[in-house]
């Protein structure tokens, strides 16, 4: 479109200024493409002037051309512009999706050390720069170079000096741009990092809002927000200040050149000097310098100026984009440490046994699991007991492959879980987590979260099993009641029961309950465990718990100390081991409760 406009003005300016307005006769080529007869051309008489009617006809031809160009322009904006936005959106959407998938598959080790707000910023803001890259590095430079080329050619056509002058100007321009680039990059990176911190700050404040309110720490939070916000704004300002300095300096150079050229061109036009290539391409007119030529050349020069300025601003913006992309790709380049084996096996059809064999595992330098061995057979309930921080939950995360052990392995029958596809593995193990995470969906959707095809009957059966059915029915909308974020409206005990129901409804051969009943009252706890015992007849069930009433229901108790199994056996066997760790544990629990009667 740009070249259509340039070409249009090139042809049109001569026709309009020299012929229509000034009444000079047409070149014979012009009469041909305007479909006019020979009476419009000079026919050897150089002093001939067009009549008013003839000048009007020329104008009409110009206006017709202008209308066509304008309509094409509108069409290209509405259709082309929207289409371009659509393409860009598709590209951005693609990148966002890839990023979020990558984030989701990163191991929990990564997530434990990253900030949610930072990832939001990367997925959202940093990834958005990808579409601008196309615009900035491909489309606009092409257009700018195209226009500069056309302009240079047009100017060469009039005078090689003009073209040369244009080329010479580029030297200081490029020097300035190169000088500024490192500063621009530093400031762009600062601006993005600080904005990212700000996003993280807001996200964390609202996540911890209860805590902040309870401690009247609103002022503290506001102070921090204010600090982060101002520092982000200052960085953004510093970056823009650089750009303004750069573009203003460039402007001074290019304006000087423009004015210098215009002065000479005015002189040539007065003298009607021959143009450099005027004789060669006579069809557009401009054999000599005249009004139309002056206007054309001057518009070309100004246009080139604008484009140099555009390129400089874009170059500055490009530094910001490069930084944004760098941050986005940083995330994509992270390798998921827990990955499928190349020849992953299917999950065994019948689970006979789950075993941990010589497992070692550390969080960083902190050894959590120490040469641990444990077997659990189908049809049994295994309680994992031990002091806080003994590594109980870690054991289960290794089974689920949220982490991989440093050495040793977890086996299902005789298959190492490392050899099973992660998706397949997790589809066959249900877990109710201690944190009771719920989603902002209806209760039914939350229960069916990991098994979206569960029928209402299955959902209700799971809820009955976990003693959640009654309180759900007491809610105004029953199973269709919408939960607030993280299940805000429910009490912890209620959330806990939903979270167990969510695990049960999956009907998997292995079930893990991490502190399942910590927040349940005794009666409910008793009922839930009784139900689970019946339900778990042909499954492997793990309970991680502190509560004696829960532990007692287990077929075997594994007492963990320092990341290894210290004692293993039934309640009756372990309680009678004098001086045993489990016995001490039970004693501690009952010291407080022994009824003095």
């Amino acid at each position, binding site marked *: 479109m740009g070249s259509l406009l340039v070409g249009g003005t090139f042809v049109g300016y001569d026709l309009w200024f020299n012929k229509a307005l000034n009444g000079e006769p047409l070149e014979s080529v012009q009469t041909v493409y305007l479909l006019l007869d020979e009476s419009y051309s000079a026919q050897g008489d150089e002093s001939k002037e067009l009549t008013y009617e003839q000048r009007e006809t020329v104008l009409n031809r110009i206006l017709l051309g202008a209308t066509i160009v304008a309509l094409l322009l509108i069409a290209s904006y509405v259709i082309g512009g929207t289409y371009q936005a659509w393409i860009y959106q598709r590209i951005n959407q693609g990148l966002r999706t890839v990023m979020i998938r990558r984030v989701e598959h990163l191991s929990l080790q990564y997530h434990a050390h990253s900030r949610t707000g930072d990832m939001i910023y990367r997925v959202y803001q940093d990834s958005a720069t990808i579409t601008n890259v196309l615009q900035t590095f491909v489309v606009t430079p092409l257009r700018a170079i195209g226009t500069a080329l056309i302009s240079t050619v047009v100017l060469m056509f009039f005078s090689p000096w003009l073209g040369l002058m244009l080329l010479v100007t580029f030297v200081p321009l490029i020097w300035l741009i190169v000088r500024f680039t490192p500063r621009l990059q530093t400031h762009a990176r600062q601006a993005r990092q600080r904005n990212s911190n700000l996003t993280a700050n807001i996200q964390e404040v609202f996540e911890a809002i209860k805590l902040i309110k309870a401690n009247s720490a609103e002022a503290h939070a506001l102070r921090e927000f204010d600090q982060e916000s101002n520092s982000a704004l200052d960085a953004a300002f510093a970056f823009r200040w650089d750009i303004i300095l750069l573009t203003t300096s460039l402007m001074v150079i290019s304006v000087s050149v423009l004015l210098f050229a215009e002065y000479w061109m005015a002189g040539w036009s007065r003298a009607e000097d021959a143009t450099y290539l005027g004789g060669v391409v006579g069809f557009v007119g401009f054999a000599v310098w005249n009004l139309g030529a002056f206007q054309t050349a001057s518009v070309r020069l100004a246009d080139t100026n604008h484009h140099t300025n555009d390129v400089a601003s874009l170059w500055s913006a490009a530094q910001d984009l490069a930084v944004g992309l760098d941050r986005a790709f940083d995330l994509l380049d992270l390798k998921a440490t827990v990955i499928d084996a190349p020849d992953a096996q299917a999950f065994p059809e019948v689970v006979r046994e789950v075993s941990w064999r010589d497992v070692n595992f550390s969080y960083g330098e902190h050894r959590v699991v120490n040469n641990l061995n444990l077997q659990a057979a189908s049809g049994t309930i295994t309680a994992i007991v031990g002091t806080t921080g003994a590594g109980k939950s870690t054991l289960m995360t290794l089974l689920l492959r949220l982490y991989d052990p440093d050495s040793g392995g977890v086996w299902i029958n005789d298959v190492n879980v490392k050899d099973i596809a992660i998706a397949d593995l997790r589809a066959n193990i249900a877990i109710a987590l201690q944190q009771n995470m719920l989603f902002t969906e209806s209760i039914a959707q939350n229960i069916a979260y990991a098994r979206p095809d569960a029928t209402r009957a299955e959902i209700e059966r799971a809820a009955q099993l976990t003693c959640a059915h009654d309180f759900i029915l007491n809610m105004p909308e029953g199973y269709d009641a919408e939960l607030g974020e993280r299940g805000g409206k429910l009490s912890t005990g209620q959330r806990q029961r939903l979270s167990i129901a969510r695990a049960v409804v999956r009907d998997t051969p292995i079930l893990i309950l991490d502190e399942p009943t910590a927040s349940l009252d005794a009666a409910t706890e008793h009922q839930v465990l009784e139900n689970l015992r019946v339900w778990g007849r042909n499954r492997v069930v793990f309970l991680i718990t502190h509560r004696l009433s829960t532990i007692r229901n287990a077929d075997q108790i594994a007492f963990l100390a320092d990341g290894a199994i210290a004692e293993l056996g039934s309640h009756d066997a372990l309680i009678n081991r004098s001086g045993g760790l489990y016995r001490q544990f039970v004693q501690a629990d009952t010291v407080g409760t022994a*009824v003095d009667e």
Partner: protein
Amino acid sequence: MSEDAGQYDDRVDTDAVISSASALGLMLRAVRLLTQVKGLFAAKALLALAAIFPPLTVPWFTKIIVDQVILDQPFNATEVRFPPFMLPFLDFVDGMAPMGIMLSVIAAYAGLLLLFGTRGEKTTLWLAGGQDAATQSEMKLSGGNSQSGGVFGALETVVHIRLSQRLANLLRTRLFTRMTKLPMTTLDDHRTGDAVYRVMYDSPEVPEICLNLTLTPVLTVLGAVLTVYIAQYSYGAVAPELVWVTAALVPMILLVTLPFSKLARHLGQASRASGAATTNAMEENLHNISAVQSLGATEKESAKFEHKSAESFRRHLFVILLGYLLLGIGILSFLVGGVYLAIYVLEKVALGEMSVGDWPALYAIFVLLTVSASTLGAVWINLQGNVAAIRRIFFFIDLPIESFEAGQPLPRLAREVALQDVDVVYPDGRQALHHINVTFSANELVAIVGPTGAGKTSLAYLLPKFLQPERGKVLFDGIDLAGVDVASLRAQVTYVFQEHTLLSKSIRDNFLLVKPDASDADIAVACAAAGAEEFIASLPDGIDTVLGRSGDTLSVGQQQRLSIARGLIRDTPVLILDEPTAALDPQTENALVQSLVNAAQDRLVLVIAHRLSTIRKADRIVFLDEGRIIEIGNHEQLMQNIGGAYAKFVTIQLGDTQLP
């Protein structure tokens, strides 16, 4: 729109229709922010005002180059008059040779261009944004522009950027402050992602509103009036009808664009609401990542995000399309006007009433006017998009916050806390507590017991005024909390939540958040009491260890001990712990309960608990069921009541766990 709001899963802000009247009201509220940035706004206004004048000279210099320099015509060959401000220049070049005139024009140009960039140069600093509303926010937040170029334009742009930043920051700080003061029940329903979206991506719309309602229309109209006046002055005699036709351009373009404003508003709202839904999906997904991974739902969550994100892009595409359609209309009107102008000028030139140089002069005037007209049209349309964002901000600023304004400061609790005939009703109509009457003395350990959902947490929430009673009173030493300053109340009540939220900062910072003047010794004492001393010592950086997200680097039991220690350090007359021992092993629990007993020597300690080992140590036990107090007394007293609710509860819990 209300069903749309549901579609974007917004739970709090559900009714989002904006009428034209309320749109205007919202805009005026935004404009009021300008009173807080008077200096910058005045600077921007003056610079922008000054920048109107230099471009007005350009058509006349062009005319001189064409007529006098190139075509060698004398001045005043036609009846067209130069405007008065050109007269000094004309006097200056009077009698000069054409190339002398040219040199003078170039000199004048040099000054004008370097200072003001008068030949269509404008300064804009809108850095590249993305393809939806959120990703353009940063560009708007620190955006600035000027109608002039050159040094002057650069200066104006710098002022503008600072003005934008200041305005947006004012609004987002106010929003942030208000949101942290919303009542607990509202916050339960509100979503973190949405909060991020409103604070980060909605607030940068406000600078545009402020300027587009004040400076832009005033300056545009002023520029247009000046231009028409000059046209009338110079061409009124030669071409009166031309002047009036060009003057009519402004209202004509406005008439064409205004009908689109309602559509623009609707599209803007939809685009933003769906953007916030995308942020929510992402935030929830990342926050619950361990649940997502362990339940094998990564694919499902990705798909959900993908869907929401695609929807927000799609909505924004409509906004873009509308923008291009309006641009098309603008080009079309420009074409019609230009055609008329060309035919008219040719006739006048042919008749000798105008010179050739009048074309560039008139064309420049025509361009100035059409730009003014389309600026005015665009201002109103753009405002519709801005107002969608502003409404999302003012909605939260307008929500009733906790009554911080009412209130005498509360003296330090000395005797007792009393609940008199208290009913609590949740906003959704559920009644959580019925006729609660109970008095706690200022130095006892009280356990609140009952089945899940009995109203234990609701009762405890009354003390720090997280909840307010529907009926009845909560009294501290006889002073009704209804009229008490909330900050002074919360300075006396510490609430340790069940979901032990730890900030992802250092352990020390977590303590400093609740007690800014805590010393290392204070922290050590609190940690010892909560049984957190030992594991903190084993961490590589001790209390300077930076915790992972929501404390993920610690085990749940360790997080719990830390959050209890954080409660203890405040050393307030009232300490409430919601299920403090659920995730603790028995040894740790016993130690903790002993610290609570000690703490209750000189304060009220309220413990919500299920575990008998904790409950037994309480001075009194309050047994709740279905929002009512069933029994009150100490363990021995309540155990006397065989068949009573508490006795039954104990029997089930003890089962047969006694040592042989």
